[in-house]
């Protein structure tokens, strides 16, 4: 569905995207994960045909970017990070206008209902909260039932329940066979939604794998425990697969002297920091 080979791009004389290559299969959710300014949005703009002048080969939905015509966008949906809506038009008027630009489109009321905006359909967008605008912007990208979806920070600014609704909708699109490119610096979204993620730092892909493989390859699950020693609380950690070798841990279990015990896996953020030396957020 998407094939990128030897991609190089720069805004100035200094190279920004450097020799990037990856493939995304049909029906896959592929995440670009990285801190601000890493090159995630630039990659997305190249894939959506907004940035030209790159070197290398980029194929999206069978069309070579750079030689694509406007009908290419009949099957591309883009949810930008910031709302792109006519503020003085109502939610329904906005969707009706953008739907009219495509050959096919979904039922507007059904989409509004899915994100809980049906009752606000006739309200001006300028009266919407940030979260409502994000949800409306999101369904705008789904309007024409595109084969490839580009989502830039889709849950940014949403409360947990609306973020849940949004994530379920994304998974629903995947279940329909849509290919989704998710750009985010939210490691939890990436872990939950993505089949594979690419760590982007300074215009390079530092790692590319499934979230589980990235976590399992780099860091084992750990047990963290605390106990009291001469009135002081001591914190200790032991890898899950080495608990039998930790004499202190075994002694504390035998004597029932543990104050607390927790198990935990490293997060994508931990792996990201370990691999790149940078923080995601």
């Amino acid at each position, binding site marked *: 569905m998407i094939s990128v080979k030897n991609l190089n791009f720069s805004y100035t004389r200094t190279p920004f995207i450097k020799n990037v290559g990856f493939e995304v299969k049909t029906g896959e959710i592929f995440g670009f994960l990285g801190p601000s300014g890493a090159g995630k949005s630039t990659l997305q*703009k190249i894939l959506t045909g*907004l940035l030209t002048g790159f070197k290398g080969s980029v194929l999206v939905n069978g069309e070579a970017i750079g030689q694509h015509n*406007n009908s290419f966008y009949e099957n591309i949906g*883009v949810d930008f990070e910031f709302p792109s*809506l006519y503020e003085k*038009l109502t939610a329904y008027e906005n969707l009706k206008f*953008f739907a*009219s*630009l495509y050959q096919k489109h979904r039922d507007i009321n059904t989409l509004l209902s899915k994100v809980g905006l049906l009752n606000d359909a006739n309200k001006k967008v300028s009266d919407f909260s940030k979260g409502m605008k994000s949800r409306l912007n999101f369904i705008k990208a789904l309007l024409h039932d595109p084969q490839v979806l580009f989502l830039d920070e889709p849950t940014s600014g949403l409360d947990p329940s609306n973020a849940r609704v949004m994530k379920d909708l994304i998974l629903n699109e995947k279940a329909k066979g849509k290919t989704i490119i998710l750009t985010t610096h939210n490691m939890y979204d990436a872990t939950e939604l993505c089949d594979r993620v690419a760590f982007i730092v300074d215009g390079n892909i530092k790692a590319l794998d499934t979230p589980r493989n990235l976590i399992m390859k780099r860091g084992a699950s750990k047990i963290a425990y605390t106990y009291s020693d001469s009135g002081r609380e001591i914190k200790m950690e032991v890898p899950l697969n080495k608990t039998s070798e930790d004499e202190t841990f075994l002694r504390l279990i035998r004597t029932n002297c543990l104050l607390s015990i927790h198990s935990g896996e490293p997060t994508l953020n931990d792996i990201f920091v370990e691999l790149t030396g940078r923080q995601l957020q």
Partner: protein
Amino acid sequence: MKVKSLFLGDVRFQFKYGFYFIYLFFSILYIGLLFALPRMWREKAAVIMIFTDPSAMGLYFMGSMVLFEKSERVLNSIAVSPVKPWEYVISKLFSIGLISSVVSLAIGIPAGIVINPFFFIFGVFLCSCLFSAVGLMIACKITTLNQFILATIPAEILINVPALIWLFWYKKSWLLVHPGVCIMTLCSGEGAPLPALLVLFFWAVLFTVLACGTVKKMLRSVGGVKL
């Protein structure tokens, strides 16, 4: 072809953002002013009013339309839609051309200057397209309303001054190559209307083509690169 959808969208946009209200207000004001003037001044005053306002409204309104679209980031969505630059330009030009023609008729009929409705309406429409195309080219390159107002001054001088000179003092036929003189000819009923219409058509098409190129660059620059 998305022109119809874009055209209807632009008409709705202009209505919702109060453009029609502004022109209803100015039409009533202009008609009131016309009837306050002595009868002998009325025709020339109506020609100047139509030339400098409804015909030229695209020059001013295009700036605010594109600036609204830029600030609301709607151009991002247009750039990743099947809309072609020429479709975007034509819809904008035609939507402003429609209101220009209606308002010009509303001023021209009471003033008694609509001698040949065909030449009058097409003249105003083409002149409006020309002004709108110039306004669109300027609007694509600026980011604030102040920049837009400053940038339109040379265009206004270049289009208006020769036309006003022709209307009051220097009625030479060679001036008909100027688009402003053409619209004066078509609105006032003086001189040869058909050559004026053809010359105006040429200028309107030329600037529409140039505007298409500018819009194409603007939509590309949504990606973040200046071309």
